[in-house]
């Protein structure tokens, strides 16, 4: 726990001088509101500084929409590589032979902040049409300790900004504040414990001087949580477990005699969203454990596979909406909730949209947690006949049954020990983020079109060991997996378009007024027409795209940036479903495009 003195007290004058020097006198060109300190006012009003990208998901509503339009339907054909930068972080550790890049760059006043899989933070000066490394903060992540309990790769999805600090996580469980100008660590705090199977891969969400942290580890018998750290005192303000403790509301949804709740999973490894109007954080919760042996944990297993609404100030649960009760499929609901307001019959409808691993997209009333609409966004769903139009629960769900079987003939269970299921356990839609175009009211989902084969292992309490898999079976990949970008019209809750791709979408989406950007793990970055989803531009990076695109401006010019380096779960566990991707080499590279 180092604490470096002095760095947090650099004067504002010194900072301004440093910025002025770094930008070569460009300071005068900066808009007055874009000061170099990030505060709540700026985080609430990111639409006032469209050239910057201050939130992991672009805004608190997780829209990943930029109003920049220099790169548009007419000009995108001229989009070219402006500059690239090799990054590091592909070293092996634990059970992983290499790291990958899943991060979203943050952009502020012409500087980019990106991470590699082991949590190093890079500050890059993007002025003058080229990228120059300003500093790199290497947190010296304990690779063997963390990498041995990272189910799904050596990943870090990015940073957040607050004050004069860059806030980041490490796989080995730390929250780190780095001085934005110097790159020196100002302070760090242990939030998660790899000895319990906990690791951190998500970017922090900053709300009102708090860093909100989610945790991974539902494949290792953790009891999940969401935690808030005060960025001034560095103290924990609250920690809300996603599995209720004994006697708490929801604890009666764990009906076993194994104390399954204590290792019940419910991880929270994707950054959530925030509704300032109600001071509510909305965060997705992952699968119950053991993943495929749901008879071990009879009951609905709250709050696994749910969207959870928390009071941001206290962390108290306001409402939840569960998608797959007593999940026997590993159908996490960790995905980001996209907050959207649309006109309704009696005033504006305030929705939270979530695209689930189980293959269904949901719209929930985010003031009450009630189901509005849901529909399958994948082509093949075999585990249920569909959603109940009133409750949104799978039609076969029976609240009186302790163990759900859904369509029993395909559902993994103790009497169906080997079975093929669609979507497979990667989804559906995994962590790669969706994007929402508020003008067109179109919501774009990065789709994994999959089936896989599940083998069930009947679990007993003696099999639960610290830092060992607690999955109750595992998948294999006898089927080819493809993907799509699927657009949903949020006003109707219907699919408005689908652009199928030869490979699953492992990177996520960026929306601009008339374009949609995305990538493929085979290397392509592409721009689609926002309405027709017709491909208008494509560039092959020569690596595997496993991260979302974003856009920003420097010196008045628009750029598109994307990290390239295939890692994550795919090329270790799921590569047999996409054999062509075996030739994709590990890599670690930032691509920046401009007209």
């Amino acid at each position, binding site marked *: *726990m180092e*604490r470096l003195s002095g760095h947090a007290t650099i004067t504002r004058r010194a900072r301004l001088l440093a910025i002025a020097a770094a930008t070569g006198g460009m300071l005068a060109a900066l808009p007055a509101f874009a000061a170099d300190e990030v505060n709540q006012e700026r985080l609430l009003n990111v639409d006032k500084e469209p050239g910057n990208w201050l939130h992991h998901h672009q805004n608190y509503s997780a829209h990943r929409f930029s109003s920049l339009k220099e790169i548009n339907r007419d000009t995108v054909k001229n989009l070219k590589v402006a500059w690239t930068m090799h990054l590091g972080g592909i070293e*092996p550790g*634990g*059970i*992983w*032979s290499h790291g990958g890049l899943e991060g979203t760059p943050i952009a502020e006043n012409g500087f980019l902040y990106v991470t590699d899989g082991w949590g190093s933070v890079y500050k890059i000066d993007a002025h003058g049409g080229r990228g120059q490394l300003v500093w790199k903060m290497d947190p010296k992540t*304990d*690779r*063997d*300790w963390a990498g*041995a309990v990272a*189910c*799904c790769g050596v990943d870090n999805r990015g940073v957040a900004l607050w004050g004069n600090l860059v806030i980041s996580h490490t796989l080995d*469980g730390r929250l780190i504040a780095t001085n934005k100008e110097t790159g020196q660590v100002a*302070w*760090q*705090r*242990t*939030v*998660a*414990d*790899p*000895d319990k199977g906990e690791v951190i891969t998500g970017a922090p969400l900053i709300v009102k001087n708090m860093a909100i942290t989610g945790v991974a580890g539902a*494949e290792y018998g953790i009891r999940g949580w969401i935690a808030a750290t005060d960025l001034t*005192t*560095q*103290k*924990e303000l609250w*920690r809300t477990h996603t599995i209720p403790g004994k006697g708490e509301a929801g604890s009666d949804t764990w009906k076993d005699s194994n104390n399954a709740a204590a290792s019940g999973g419910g991880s929270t490894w994707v950054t959530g969203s925030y509704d300032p109007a109600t001071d509510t954080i909305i965060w997705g919760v992952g699968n119950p454990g053991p993943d495929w042996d749901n008879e071990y944990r009879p009951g609905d297993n709250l709050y696994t596979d749910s969207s959870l609404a928390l009071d941001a100030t206290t962390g108290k649960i306001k409402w939840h909406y569960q998608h797959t009760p007593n999940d026997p499929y590993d159908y996490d609901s960790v995905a980001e909730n996209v907050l959207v307001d649309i006109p309704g019959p009696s005033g504006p409808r305030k929705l939270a949209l979530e695209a689930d691993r189980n293959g269904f997209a949901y719209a929930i009333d985010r003031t009450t947690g009630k189901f509005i609409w849901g529909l399958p966004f994948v082509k093949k769903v075999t585990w249920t006949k569909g959603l109940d139009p009133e409750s949104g629960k799978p039609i076969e769900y029976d609240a009186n049954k302790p163990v759900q079987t859904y369509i029993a003939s395909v559902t993994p269970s103790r009497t169906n020990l080997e079975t093929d299921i669609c979507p497979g356990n990667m989804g559906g839609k995994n962590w790669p983020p969706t994007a929402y175009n508020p003008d067109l009211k179109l919501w774009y989902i990065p789709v994994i079109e999959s089936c896989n084969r599940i*083998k069930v*292992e009947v679990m007993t309490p003696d099999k639960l060991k*610290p*830092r*060992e*898999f607690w*999955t*109750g*079976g*595992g*998948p*294999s990949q006898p089927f080819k997996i493809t993907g799509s970008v699927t657009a949903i019209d949020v006003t109707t809750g219907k699919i408005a378009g689908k652009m199928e791709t030869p490979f699953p979408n492992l990177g996520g989406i960026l929306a601009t007024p008339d374009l949609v950007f995305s990538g493929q793990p085979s290397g392509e970055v592409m721009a689609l027409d926002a309405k027709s989803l017709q491909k208008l531009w494509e560039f092959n990076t020569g690596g595997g795209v496993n991260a979302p695109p974003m856009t920003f401006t420097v010196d008045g010019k628009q750029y598109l940036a994307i990290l390239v380096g295939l890692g994550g*779960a795919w090329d*270790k*566990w799921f590569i*047999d479903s996409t054999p062509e991707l075996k030739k994709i080499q590990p890599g670690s590279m930032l691509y920046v495009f401009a007209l």
Partner: protein
Amino acid sequence: MPGPPTSSTRDVMMIFNASSAIARILLMSVVALILSMPAVAFGQSAQATASDPTNAGKAVFSKANCMGCHKWHGNGGGGYGGDALSLRKTQLTREQIIETVSCGRPTTGMPFFVRGAYDEVKCYGMNRAEAGSHMPPEAGTLLRQKDIEAVADYVLAHIKGAGEPTYAECVAFFSSTSRVCDIYKTQAQKPDDATTSTGKSQ
């Protein structure tokens, strides 16, 4: 290269029937799993040291990413990648381990590590065409015969027959400053402040 066959599998091998060869491998695996075997004392006590002749094999165990599925301790276990067999509980002989590493295990995720396996080097009496869809995956890192023998010797000396993983074994494997071994410490080995590291501000 094949291990000692039973009389029935010997007959099968003579006619080079590929699918039966697979049956033989599966049979061998099943037998290996079912047979009970007393723990071998040296498996638990012998630790790799600087002068340990199996250090080269330990390096191969890391370099070839055996630990990616079997874990550093060799116990393997279920998970996202399927169920890697426990090398601690294995019944395979040195020759059978060498064969399995060289040729992989058809129909499973255990890859082959020898260059030319199922091509110039026949595996279980099969070439690539005969193995067909049962062909195991190719390893990310191919190994020379000497390396395969070394890793087999390391498994025999330090993993096969050992009981539950211990702190001493873990430290011997990693010989680093990583906290990866901390959970194997007994209470007596834990420093007084070992429980203060989580959930606390510095």
